[in-house]
């Protein structure tokens, strides 16, 4: 909130009245020395309370000087009591570092420090030196030196490094020569070798290189042989050879052989008369007697149907016989000696055996027999009629045909054909389809029902032309003239056709 303007009526009796604005007056008793006065902004008067101070008002306690609050018209000071400091008595020990350089110079160095605390009394002390004691310093000593070297070894003692010497380089002992031989050993070579006959002598000592010595060469003699006593199958031979003294190489020398003729070893003639292997040892020749080959012959033995025993033989004289072939007289056998009797055949046929017979009588009764032909037929559809062919060629139509269900089982379908029989006898024929509940068997012109009851229509033929409608010399017609009767698909029907005898 703004403070309202404060005016002080400085002189109320004057005309006009004199008013003083005191709104901005901020003086207080704390900002005024004691004994001074002032006018506040509300127009009222106040008195100051700040006390006046000097050096005598200051106090010291230890290192602290205290100045009380108040107004100091001039500078003020206060002294504190004086103190003292004493350096302590102490010692320091340091171990030096020692080194030797490449020239044999020894250097010893030392460095160290130690902290110390001075003794101080209370009071003001002037500045001085810090309490630290240090130590440092060095010194050197030069050794007697010897340079590095390589010593060549000898058979005598040598000093490599003298006593008290510091070597500044490597002291080495050189390698001994690989051919070095001590002074107490004799060295040898080829000239020291000696030969006597076949022996070479090498004296003791050291041979630095290979040594050799040749021995004298000899000459190999040519071998010879001398023939001694000769008897049947053997001869004594004495070989010999003469060589000169000396080294002889391993070559082969061939000398003169001993010749022995066959006549010196064998004699006489061996006479051979028997066949086989003969020993002819010790004989100079062999003699074989000639033989004569005999003429082979054969003797007829027992004769029976289809077989005869024959015994061949040949007689030769003793001795050598050449390998030529000589044919002798054969044995003769008549047919009559092998076969006998008469085979009687009364029936037609082929491949009839007549073995063992010398004759055949054929007596087949005259007139043609029954001809017949058979076959099967399996339709893939239910069908009312079908033409079926014969295999063979015939000059007339068959006398009768029988057709039946060869599967045997009659299906329970009464509306379709199960069995059909065609029977024709010249001008008379029937064709009878049958139901499932009945079956038929028969032959020729007679047909019988299983239960003696026909179940469907039949047909008779009263003329050759009507029969020919169903029969021909090459086929017949399996036919149902009854509506709704069929040969069943999948069933196998068997048929037999018969032709009348020709006489």
């Amino acid at each position, binding site marked *: 909130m703004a403070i309202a303007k404060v005016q002080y009526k400085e002189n109320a009796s004057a005309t006009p009245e004199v008013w003083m604005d005191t709104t901005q007056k901020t003086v207080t008793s704390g900002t005024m020395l004691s004994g001074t006065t002032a006018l506040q902004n509300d127009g009222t008067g106040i008195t100051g309370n700040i006390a006046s101070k000097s050096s005598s008002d200051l106090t010291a306690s230890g290192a602290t000087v205290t100045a009380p609050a108040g107004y100091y018209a001039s500078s003020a000071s206060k002294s504190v009591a004086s103190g003292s400091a004493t350096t302590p008595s102490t010692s320091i020990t340091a171990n030096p570092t020692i080194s030797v350089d490449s020239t044999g110079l020894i250097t010893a160095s030392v460095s160290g420090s130690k902290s110390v605390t001075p003794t101080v009394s209370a009071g003001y002390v002037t500045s001085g030196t810090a309490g630290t004691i240090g130590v440092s310093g060095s010194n050197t000593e030069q050794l007697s030196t010897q340079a590095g070297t390589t010593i060549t070894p000898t058979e005598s003692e040598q000093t490599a490094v003298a006593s008290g010497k510091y070597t500044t380089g490597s002291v080495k002992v050189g390698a001994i020569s690989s051919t070095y031989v001590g002074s107490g050993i004799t060295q040898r070579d080829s000239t020291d070798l000696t030969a006597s006959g076949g022996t070479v002598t090498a004296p003791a000592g050291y041979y630095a290189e290979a040594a050799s010595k040749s021995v004298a060469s000899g000459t190999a003699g040519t071998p010879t042989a001398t023939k001694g006593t000769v008897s049947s199958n053997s001869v004594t031979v004495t070989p010999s050879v003469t060589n000169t003294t000396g080294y002889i190489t391993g070559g082969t020398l061939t000398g003169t052989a001993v010749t022995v003729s066959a006549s010196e070893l064998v004699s006489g003639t061996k006479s051979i008369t028997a066949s086989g292997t003969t020993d002819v040892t010790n004989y100079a020749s062999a003699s074989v007697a000639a033989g004569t080959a005999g003429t082979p012959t054969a003797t007829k033995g027992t004769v029976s149907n289809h077989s005869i025993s024959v015994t061949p033989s040949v007689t030769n004289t003793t001795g050598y016989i050449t390998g030529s072939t000589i044919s002798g007289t054969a044995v003769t056998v008549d047919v009559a000696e092998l076969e006998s009797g008469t085979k009687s055949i009364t029936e037609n046929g082929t491949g009839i055996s007549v073995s063992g017979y010398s004759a055949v009588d054929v007596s087949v009764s005259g007139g043609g027999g029954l001809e017949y032909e058979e*076959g099967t037929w*399996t*339709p893939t559809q239910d069908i009312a009629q079908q033409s079926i062919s*014969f*295999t063979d060629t015939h000059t007339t139509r068959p006398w009768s045909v029988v057709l039946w269900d060869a599967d045997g089982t009659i299906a329970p379908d009464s509306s379709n054909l199960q069995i059909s029989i065609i029977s024709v006898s010249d001008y008379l024929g029937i064709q*009878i389809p049958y139901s499932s509940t009945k079956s038929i068997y028969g032959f020729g012109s007679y047909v019988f029902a299983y239960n003696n009851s026909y179940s469907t229509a039949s047909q*008779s033929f009263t003329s050759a032309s009507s029969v020919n409608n169903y029969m021909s010399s090459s*086929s017949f017609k399996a036919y149902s003239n009854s509506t709704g009767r069929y040969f069943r698909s999948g069933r196998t029907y068997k048929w037999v056709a018969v032709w009348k005898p020709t006489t």
Partner: protein
Amino acid sequence: MRYYKLIENGYIVAIGTGGGGVEITDAEYNAILSAIHNKPPRTGTTDYHLKTDLTWEEYEREPDPVDETELDPQDALNAIFGGAE
């Protein structure tokens, strides 16, 4: 034994033994016979032709006609012996 097959309009209508038809081997005969024994059953007016590759081809066939009256035994004998006609 001679085996044969009958072919009409490209279909096998029958097989058999004996004369006629086209001669075939016994192996082919047995193969066709096996196919015939496995013929799909006929239903209503639907039947099947056997093709030469031994597969069955369906076709529509005429319905079965009504059965005729059966022949009595005497009429059958008359037919056999050429009696009253």
